[in-house]
């Protein structure tokens, strides 16, 4: 039995990708389809009765902000919030004592390994976007609903932190499909996370920021696009865009300050 096959492949991808998103806040209507699609795709359990908005798990969470004008000129905007996939000095990766968080150089995705996590929740403190969630309880599915779990994503037990990983199960499936066709590279559009696919308003654009021809890279460079809490210097890969200046100003505040109804 040979230990080295005839064809060695030492590079897993021709060029590392940096997956990111551009979310158009002027299109988002706060319907929550992205939240629901995310929870279905990633086997997020229904809440216990004891769960509160702070202890629930919402990998994708839509916040509502308002322009602060008095009645009847109050206008609302909705901001879908998910793990921003920080690209530089990733705070959660830096503090984890278990090395359960890793910024993958090949895709730019910040991997969270619930199986390595010991549940100290230091990363939750470190995350400036409150995008990490703790499993306070074992998942409990109403009878029959456990049959609807997604086999591409492993359910987590209690005591571990979890967060958005850009639907890694879909990345695996897309790569496997490409591999079955003999391809190593993914075509644009072959891999989209659940929230991107579900949004009825097509508000989320997803792709490889390293690919200058991709729509997401083009939109990210646009003047109307900005990132939340950019001043922290974590280089998040989620861009938001809006033509409304009040939305831009409100999004520049921290989540504590913005209206969380």
């Amino acid at each position, binding site marked *: 039995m040979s230990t080295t096959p005839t064809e060695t492949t030492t590079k897993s991808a021709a060029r590392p990708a940096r997956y990111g998103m551009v979310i158009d806040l002027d*299109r988002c*209507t*706060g*319907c*929550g*389809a992205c*939240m*629901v*699609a995310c*929870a*279905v*795709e990633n*086997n*997020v359990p*229904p*809440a216990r009765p004891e*769960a*509160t*908005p702070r202890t*629930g*798990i*919402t990998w994708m*969470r*839509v*916040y*509502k902000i*308002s322009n602060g004008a*008095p*009645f*009847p000129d*109050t*206008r*609302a905007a*909705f901001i879908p919030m998910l793990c921003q996939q920080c690209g530089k000095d990733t705070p959660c990766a830096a503090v984890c004592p278990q090395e359960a968080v890793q910024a993958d150089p090949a895709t730019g995705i910040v991997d969270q390994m619930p*199986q390595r996590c010991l549940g100290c929740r230091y990363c939750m403190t470190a995350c400036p976007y409150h995008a990490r969630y703790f499993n306070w309880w*074992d*998942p409990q*599915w*109403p*009878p*029959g*609903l*456990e*049959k*609807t*779990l*997604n*086999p591409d994503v*492993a*359910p*987590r*037990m209690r005591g571990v932190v979890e967060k958005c990983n850009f639907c890694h199960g879909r990345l695996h499936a897309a790569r496997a499909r490409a591999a079955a066709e003999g391809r190593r590279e993914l075509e644009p559009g072959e891999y989209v996370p659940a929230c991107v*696919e*579900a*949004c*009825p*308003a*097509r508000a989320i654009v997803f792709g490889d920021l390293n690919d200058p021809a991709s729509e997401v890279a083009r939109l990210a460079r646009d003047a109307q696009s900005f990132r939340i809490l950019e001043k922290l210097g974590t280089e998040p890969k989620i861009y938001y865009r809006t033509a409304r200046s009040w939305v831009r100003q409100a999004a520049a505040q921290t989540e504590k300050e913005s209206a*969380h*109804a």
Partner: protein
Amino acid sequence: MGFTRRDLLKFSGGSAAGLVFTPVPWSLLHDTALWSENWPGIPQPPQGEVRTRYTTCTLCPAGCGVRARCAGDQPVSLSGVPGHPASRGALCAAGLVGHHLAFCRDRAREPLAHGHPVAIERALAAVTAAIAACGPRETVALFDPRPGRAASFVYRRFLSGLPNAVHCAPADAQPCGPFGVDLENTRAILSFGTPVLDGWLSPGRVLANRSHLRLIQVEAAYSRTASLADVWVPVVPGGEDAFAEAVARALQGGGADERAAEAARLLLQNKPAIALGGGAAVAKLNAILGSVGQPGGFLPRRDFTPATDIATVPDGSIRVLLIEEGSGGRPLSWDLVQRKLVPQNPLVVALTPWLDGCAQHADYIIPAPVYLESLDEAATPAGSVAAGFSLSPALLASPGKLTPPAEFVLRLAQDSASYADVLKDRVTAIRKEGRGSIFTYADAKSTRVAEIASAADLWKAMLGGAVWLDDRLPTATNLRPGALPAPESVELTPAYPLILIAADDPPAHASPLMSKLYRESGLRRPANAAIVHPKTGRGQGLQDGCRAIVSSPSGTFTVQTIFDPAVMPGVIEVAGRTPSAASIRRA
């Protein structure tokens, strides 16, 4: 040599030291950790080959196409069908978890008579006897949540054989009568209470056209549509007509108040424009705007099932009432229904998947299958400018003892056909008429019906997931869209000085996942929340977040107060309530 205690200790010490150099302690630690991660409490996802199956969503009249990703035969996630003419490849939040509904609580599992299991024959016999015993001025009514289906045809055929019968439907089931909306060419919408951005037509279609629409929302509640519209015109319930008249005057060059003039300006600058809503004044607005029969406006289509709004049925006249409740959507208001029943011995049969809603008050409950459990149909997609039809094939195994509502009525009519036979007949009729084309979900291709070889081929194509759309009618300007009744105004009294209105009603039945996400994110207010303007709240002695009691002529209930400076002063917004005068005081 004797084996002393010292020897034993040395032996043990040596074993311990030696053990450390074996895999034993490390393996035990490691394996115990692994064992603790795989407690039986953690569910195992289903195993099975990944397959894709197609169906149509029947939770609301939008009729979106659904692509189901299945592990083996079990759907594990749903998504839209790219290229679908009505839904544009999108599903709403409720549609994305439609496959959870079958497992929600409060399922009716077997026929019940006042809570006790019965054979379905008993219910059939009771209904037949009650119909025979109807007096000269008593009616038999059937409430159909989705008129326009082949099932609706079954209902009408049955009812037409009775001396005094009425086919009822929700007032907003076919708001524009035999018209669809040419949204792709519309440039402005003046909406009187229609939730344009939050459950009107299919979200994929509306939002695909949002960028070229100016939206003016006229309603009392600060709904999600109102908060996202270009302009929100708050009016008290009943004030819609006056505002519509004012806009009509402004459109014709007459004087009007500032808000009406601004609205008229927007409509004139962004043509074609339409007005959505109920009342004669809105119909007049549409006539002035010239929106009927014109591109960008209301275009006529072939189908229409004339059904009666149950609110217009005379009070105290219904002797036998059959209520079909769907898997999704708003349940019928029992307060309204009760008024219409005869005072002595009415018979109410609920044909419903759920035990709550009208089933709580029904004499008989005939359990119906939930969305995805049995072959169903979707009528013309809401707002479509061409008549349409699609099948909703089952994706889940149906538990026994369920009866599709149409089959109950077929058995009442002593018709031995099954619901599937009725649907096959409908498809055969479509093939025979030879008009229109079908869009098949799996390959996103459109085929003219005339090119399909046989009715059996068409049936097979529709079972695989497809939607049939008729050819468009040539426009005709002599048709008028049906008018919804205008919302009633609310009489304020000193005892009830505030207006209670509904706000962003959540669906009656939802996947526990969806409810949890809305609750945790705060995106939808809890069912017992009462939202008031801070001035109104403080004027009534309330504090933000306090418990309060809301009283109205129809009763009292407890709420959690939420202050929101965006809502109209003088108004209390609570989900699921009909507009009425009310008062609120601290609990």
